[in-house]
């Protein structure tokens, strides 16, 4: 591909490899090696109180996969969270991108305000929400009571707490969608839209027949990336509820963390981490296919 007139083939290969050497080295040292060590640990009885590291085969995998907590709370939570958070932020982000895609006075200011959540650390976002949804002193309950409604103990019940977590995540990631989709919208060719306007096509038809199909590749990329990221969400759950009440809002990352660093069972924690990694690799591959096919219609 790289044109003619280059002196030596060997020189080109050397150049190519040198370009990726630092990245490959770092990737190996800090991702490949740890994953290998984690895989090794997952087959051993590796705990703080039992440093013998005896080989136990698939015992930890069986334990995790037969743990009702993992099967009936953590996995459903993780997938429900993933679906709600991705869908919510996509719809909201697309709506805002369409809104920002036309010129109006003060557009720059609106755009800046809408991008605010992008720079808020998830930990800070979680702290803010925790304070706003505080059952005694939070503003949300104060407003509800002002309206004559009853305040809710938001973070003390499973599904309201889960709702607050999902909402926080949507708030955090909507700007990301807005940004990418807006860039996509602005790079679309104008002619088809002008033609549609001349033909008097309805707004909804323009949206479903022109805008959406033309944005397909951007949407696919957004959804796949965000779904994979949503699967590993840790910070906001840790700070908002700590997985509580009880362990009812734990997501996968938190489950593995609790096993390894609070229960101090590194073997089982590593097994959980590997299981999660495998699940997301499969989900990622399937998702890519499905979303790509849906978007193509």
């Amino acid at each position, binding site marked *: 591909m790289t044109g003619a007139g280059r002196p030596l083939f060997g020189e080109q290969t050397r150049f190519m490899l040198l370009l990726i050497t630092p990245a490959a080295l770092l990737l190996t040292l*800090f991702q490949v090696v740890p994953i290998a060590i984690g895989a090794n640990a997952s087959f051993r009885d590796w705990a703080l109180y039992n440093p013998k590291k005896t080989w136990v085969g698939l015992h930890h995998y069986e334990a995790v996969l037969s743990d009702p907590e993992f099967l009936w709370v953590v996995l459903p939570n993780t997938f429900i969270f993933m679906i709600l958070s991705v869908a919510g932020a996509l719809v909201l982000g697309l709506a805002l991108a369409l809104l920002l895609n036309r010129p109006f006075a003060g557009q720059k200011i609106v755009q800046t305000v809408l991008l*605010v959540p*992008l720079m808020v650390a998830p930990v800070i976002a979680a702290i803010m929400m925790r304070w706003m949804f505080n059952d005694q002193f939070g*503003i949300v309950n104060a407003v509800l009571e002002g309206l004559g409604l009853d305040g809710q103990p938001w973070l003390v019940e499973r599904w309201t707490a889960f709702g607050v977590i999902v909402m926080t995540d949507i708030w955090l990631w909507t700007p990301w969608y807005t940004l990418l989709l807006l*860039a996509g919208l602005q790079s679309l060719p104008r002619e088809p839209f002008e033609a549609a306007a001349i033909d008097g096509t309805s707004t909804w038809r323009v949206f479903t027949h022109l805008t959406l199909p033309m944005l397909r590749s951007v949407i696919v990329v957004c959804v796949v990336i965000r779904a994979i990221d949503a699967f590993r969400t840790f910070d906001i759950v840790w700070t908002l509820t700590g997985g509580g009440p009880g362990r009812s809002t734990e997501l996968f*990352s938190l489950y593995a963390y609790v096993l390894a660093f609070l229960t101090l069972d590194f073997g089982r924690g590593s097994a959980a981490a590997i299981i999660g*990694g495998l699940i*997301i690799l499969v989900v990622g591959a399937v998702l890519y296919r499905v979303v790509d096919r849906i978007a193509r219609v």
Partner: protein
Amino acid sequence: MAMVKEPLLFARLPLNARRVLFGLVLFAICFLFAFPVLWLILTSLRPESGVYYVHRGTEFTLGNFVEVLKDDRVVEAFANSALIATLATVFSLLVTVSSGYMLSRFQGPAARTWFGTIYVFRCVPYISWVLPLYFVAQSWGLYDTYMGLLLPHIAVHICFFSWLMKGFFDGIDPSMEYAALIDGCTRWGAFIRVALPSAIPAIAALGVLCWLFTWNEFLFALILTGNRVPVITVVMAQFVTEMGMRWNLMAATAVMALLPAFLLALFGQKYVIRGLRL
């Protein structure tokens, strides 16, 4: 552009009413989006006695910020976060720009393998490699050190940023580089003197993102550091459990942690928006 035409009901209203309605909707959206941050700022300005009824009362004070900054641990955490975010950004850019350039300019088995590798590792959840990295860091003596936190932060962005960088370089016509090669420039010369300058907007965008991501990162620091290298996100999360009732101090710390990110994003916004076209 005629891309978004108003719905019928909306279109029937007189122009002025339409403008007002549109303005109101915009204002409501902006308000909802900014409200959590505004509320945090308001809370941080309330004295201890008024913090539980932020919406009433009119007393305001900057005392919370002063009190938080008296805590050496908080100051140290800010310094550490800033240092690590800056170093991680510099090194991460060095590593990923060249890797993205390789992905964009070469085809064949090596480039395909590398692309596949970074795609797979982009999908691996952080916990799956940071959890065992805890053992690795301990046995290499990197646990709770600057290096032990900095290196994983550089490593984590390799996949995503190489991929974004490839996209940027794909958008730059390589014929200039060929011309430079024919004129006797080395490959490194063509890369550094010809390709890099035209990629500067993209590099700026990645720099802003990288700094923000590192500044905001929590899980790595939680697992890979103890007491010797406090960073701001971990210190704040500890506050929630340790002094969960003192919301005014909590909010003041959070506002200070927001400030650098906010300033950076404000100035970097145009680069990010221009640079993020997929």
